[in-house]
């Protein structure tokens, strides 16, 4: 897989040279403060917190895709969903969060896969509230689902993204499940240039 190796080096290069960086703990603590605030605002209604995080992520995704396309030098559209998965895991997550989740658990129709996070910077330092509910209801990093949903919608893919396990809940892995609902092939958005 010579080409894939070359491509991985490319992402490392993009991460090192093209991305302005900030201290990771600033981001992590800011996210933590935000989630804690949401829990307070929604009176620990974690289902609502999850929804709000997803919504915020979606808004981010809509805007982030342009940045992604510019930084990653991606000129061509992904030819299939498998390629999309590769780009998300190895390019998207790498250049924004400096992690590379593992792609796994494809369904045979190639429309569903999982991202398994060995590392999740957002979850550094985090212990969920010990209230007997948070570990069953809160998806702490749910913003990431929204980001994927929003970003992919901008490139004509309607997906569903949701966490199915999280080490913060006491699971052994942190896994996000992504399902392709459909390609949005009508009315392409106008090109910028």
């Amino acid at each position, binding site marked *: 897989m010579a080409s894939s190796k070359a491509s991985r080096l490319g992402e490392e290069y993009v*991460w090192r040279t093209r*991305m*302005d*960086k*900030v*201290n*990771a*703990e*600033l*981001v*992590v*603590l*800011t*996210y933590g*403060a*935000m989630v*804690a*605030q949401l829990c307070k*605002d929604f009176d620990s209604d974690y289902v609502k917190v999850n929804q*709000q995080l997803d919504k*915020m992520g979606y*808004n*981010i995704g809509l*805007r*982030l895709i342009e*940045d992604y396309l510019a930084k990653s030098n991606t000129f061509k559209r992904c030819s299939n969903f498998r390629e999309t998965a590769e780009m998300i895991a190895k390019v998207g997550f790498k*250049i*924004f*969060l*400096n992690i590379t989740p593992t792609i796994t658990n494809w369904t045979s129709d190639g429309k569903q896969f999982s991202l398994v996070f060995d590392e999740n*910077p957002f979850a*550094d*330092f*985090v*212990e*969920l509230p*010990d209230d*007997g509910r948070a*570990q069953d209801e809160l998806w702490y990093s749910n*913003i990431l689902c929204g980001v994927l949903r929003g970003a992919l919608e901008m490139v004509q893919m309607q997906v569903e993204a949701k966490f199915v396990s999280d*080490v913060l*809940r*006491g*699971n*052994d892995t942190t896994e996000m499940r992504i399902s392709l609902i459909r390609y949005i092939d009508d009315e392409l958005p106008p090109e910028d240039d």
Partner: protein
Amino acid sequence: MAHLGPGKTASSKEQTGLRYPSNGKTIYHRPLNRTKTAELSQSSFAYLFSEMVTYAQRRVTGIQELEKRLNVQGHPIGLKLLDLLLMREPPRTQTRPLTIIALLHFIKINLWTHLFGRQADRLEKSSNPDTPDEYMIVDNEPVVNAYISVPREMSQLNCAAFVAGIIEGVCDGAMFPARVTAHSVGGKEEGEMWPGKTVFLVKFQPEILEREALLGKS
């Protein structure tokens, strides 16, 4: 302190219901220094931060209230960083700040360098004899302003209110209760060289100055 009696002990509720992964990994197993120098992309921060502002904006009625809310969200971060940064200091310099100056230096140097990769640009004491309790930390180009686009109707908003909250958290935690506010001064003083230039006004509570006088350290 009389309110602790036998029976009302912290250990009486030691059982917790939290589940942990089968490898037993918890926050206590993670070395605290692992992310000391780790980096994430600035755009991740910018996206996150502006989403946080947009969300907060919907729950308030004006700029002042919004800034207050950002301040409140920064506050616990300051409390946490105070101890995280102290813990990481080598034994020789691992000391609690005992004076206003020592505290402000900790903020200008340690806190700023950790969060923003450089010291704050300047530290000033109010020259107004009526406000000896006021100090200013100057940042020519706060990250939170440089990369975050604020909605047009919010153009007066200074997102550095969030950083002001972090500073306030450090001050309060160290027993120097203060009110910290962020003020844009870019364009007023030095032309347009630093359009985002921000002054963090730190106003200590009166008893802090009294304490300093008492300890003979001011």
